[in-house]
């Protein structure tokens, strides 16, 4: 991903927001001078270039250092728990998760704070892979839409995208949460291919958590068409004929991300986009509600202690239990609404009382007298000309409809038009060969006239011949194009050309 790098100023502001809170919580009299120093310096940093920023940085850091070094580990831990984030969360707080379902099966939108992911599951009957004849195929595709952030380009496989897709595959496919054997229709001939499309709609940090929730919710919500097999014959039933069947899902792995700051001193659950930009390391743990770890990945090159990883896995257990509960409740809700024949789909998930949302009931449109109106327009319009009744056959193998319209190329002025008409009046009717001849004659006469006015005696015509050896065609072309121009301008042009030649 080509994200615009944070300026030093921004980076410092974010880190300081984390750090200052700690200092302020410990001893209140200290922050005011610190704060004023920070605000006093910030603009000078903003204006200074990247090179000059580093010497300015040192006093600020020096002022902060005593506060940091004096704190003993136990104290840091207690302070960390009191630490608040830019969006007012505590360090272990997860953002609100909201799940809404579409009208189709297997379609959902998951909102994690302001991060939003659209998930859609689709299926297709395909022939299986050669080495896995009795297993269905699972395919995940996460896309970072340019809608989500301006830095995302359409159709580009960025490093971040590859990393996220791989992690998603490991979380969902390699953990064997979907029973792929139940997706087999005829061994070695036909299996179901389940495709999970995930679109990131808004990027506000922690894409992987939102995507993993969206993927598993969409898979749980999805129903595939029922099939029956008689011998080698496979019958596919439409939803009207037989109820579609859900996929068999063993467990629901869910990813939880942890951001580490300052070599693991600070830990934040569910980092937002701003926090992600200043973090030193990221730990992603995928777990199901039985507290089984499905995937664990640490990135960013940070060394973690054993107890840090253990603590993270404990937190994951709690978060996953909460999220699984929420997913099951959301699925149950949707199932109930569909069963009772109530309204469902995204239109229902927009809250009515929201000020930015608006709904309009089915609105009748009066189309009673459109026929009269249409009739009026048609009668007002010019009747279509019906001159092209017969195609003209000029010669064998050609056909022409109508006479063609007047050439409207270029915006000729009145005088030019007259001139052209004069020139063209006889030419238009004559045949091709004649035209060429007349063209040549005109050309010759014109050049001769020029010769008269300008004293450049002999070889004008010869020169033209030398320059444009394909005599006939070229000459006619120069003639016709020249005719479009004003004759005076042509003369001027010729003069220029001649002068140029004279200088040679």
């Amino acid at each position, binding site marked *: 991903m080509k994200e615009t790098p944070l300026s030093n100023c921004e980076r410092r502001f974010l880190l300081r927001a984390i750090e200052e809170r700690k200092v302020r919580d410990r001893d209140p009299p200290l922050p005011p001078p610190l704060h004023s120093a920070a605000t006093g310096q910030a603009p000078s940093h903003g204006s200074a270039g990247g090179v000059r920023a580093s010497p300015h940085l040192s006093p600020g850091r020096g002022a902060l250092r005593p506060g940091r070094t004096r704190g003993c580990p136990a104290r840091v831990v207690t302070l960390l728990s009191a630490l608040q984030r830019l969006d007012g969360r505590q360090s272990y707080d997860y953002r609100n998760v909201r799940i809404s379902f579409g009208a189709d099966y297997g379609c959902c939108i998951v909102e994690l704070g302001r991060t939003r992911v659209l998930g859609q599951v689709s299926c297709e009957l395909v022939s299986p892979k050669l080495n896995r004849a009795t297993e269905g195929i699972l395919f995940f595709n996460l896309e970072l839409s340019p809608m989500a952030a301006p830095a995302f380009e359409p159709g580009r496989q960025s490093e971040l995208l590859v990393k996220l897709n791989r992690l998603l595959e490991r979380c969902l496919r390699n953990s064997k949460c979907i029973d792929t054997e139940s997706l087999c229709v005829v061994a070695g001939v036909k299996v179901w291919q389940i495709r999970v499309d995930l679109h990131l709609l808004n990027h506000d940090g922690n894409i992987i958590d939102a995507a993993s929730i969206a993927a598993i919710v969409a898979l749980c919500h999805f129903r595939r068409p029922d099939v029956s097999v008689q011998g080698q014959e496979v019958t596919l039933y439409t939803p009207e004929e037989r109820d579609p069947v859900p996929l068999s899902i063993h467990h629901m792995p869910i990813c939880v991300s942890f951001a580490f700051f300052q070599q693991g001193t600070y830990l934040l659950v569910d980092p937002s986009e701003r926090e992600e930009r200043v973090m030193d390391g990221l730990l992603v743990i995928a777990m199901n509600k039985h507290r089984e770890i499905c995937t664990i990945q640490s990135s960013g090159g940070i060394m973690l202690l054993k107890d840090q990883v253990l603590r993270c896995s404990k937190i994951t257990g709690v978060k996953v239990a909460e999220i699984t509960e929420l997913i099951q409740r959301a699925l149950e809700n949707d199932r109930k609404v569909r069963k009772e024949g109530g309204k469902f789909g995204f239109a229902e998930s927009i809250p009515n009382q929201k000020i*930015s949302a*608006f709904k309009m009931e089915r609105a009748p449109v009066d189309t009673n007298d459109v026929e009269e109106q249409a009739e009026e327009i048609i009668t007002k319009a010019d009747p279509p000309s019906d001159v092209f009744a017969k195609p003209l056959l000029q010669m064998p193998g050609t056909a022409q409809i109508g006479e063609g319209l007047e050439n409207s190329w270029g915006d000729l002025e009145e005088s030019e038009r007259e001139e052209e008409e004069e020139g063209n009046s006889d030419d238009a009717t004559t045949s091709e060969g004649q035209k060429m001849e007349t063209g040549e004659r005109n050309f010759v006469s014109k050049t001769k006239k020029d010769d008269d006015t300008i004293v450049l005696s002999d070889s004008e015509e010869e020169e033209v011949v030398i320059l444009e050896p394909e005599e006939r065609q070229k000459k006619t072309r120069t003639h016709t194009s020249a005719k479009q121009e004003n004759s005076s301008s042509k003369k001027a042009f010729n003069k220029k050309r001649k002068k140029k030649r004279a200088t040679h």
Partner: protein
Amino acid sequence: MGSEPGGGCALRRFSCELGPLGRPDGSAAFLQGDTSVLAGLYGPAEVKVSKELYDKATVEVLLKPKVGLPGVFEKNREQLIRKTCEAVILGALHPRTSISIVLQVISDAGALLACCLNAACMGLMDAGLPMKSLFCGVTCTLDATGAIGLDPTAKQEKEARAVLTFAISSVERQVLMSTTKGTCSVEELQQCIAAAQRASGTIFQFYRDSVRRKYSKA
């Protein structure tokens, strides 16, 4: 759609949400019945040198299908939407910038192009870009008997003899764009345009009401 006892047609239930996304400069979710499109808009922003126009803003439209990669079908619609947007955006006010509109299909249950156009217009409104006029998309169908239907569902679209989509401007209800599929006579085309112009009145009132509601407490 669906013929009412009075012989008239109807638009399905409309819903919209202005500014549902945090990152884009303007965004809108637009729903017509079960058809739903989300629009996100960035601009006027920095433009790639290769796409830079010295006298006006470059308008780009990206239509993302829900499943799979965008193909020729999407490219064609992108062009239709782009030309419509270009016709109303006062791009000369922001020369050498880019305005990119990303449309994500959330669900397709008929009249998708019309819904895309409506979402794009609401997105432009939410972004506060200067425009000559507003526009809306209306889809009409002609069935075998020649009866006109408005805002069809996917099923009605499939059964129809011809499907016509128009973009109508809010100034004098002018036609900004039209695309048709299937066969229809000149009379029927004019009738459909007239019907679409009638329906546009309802849609523009919907735009007005939703924006009024959003700014009612400002």
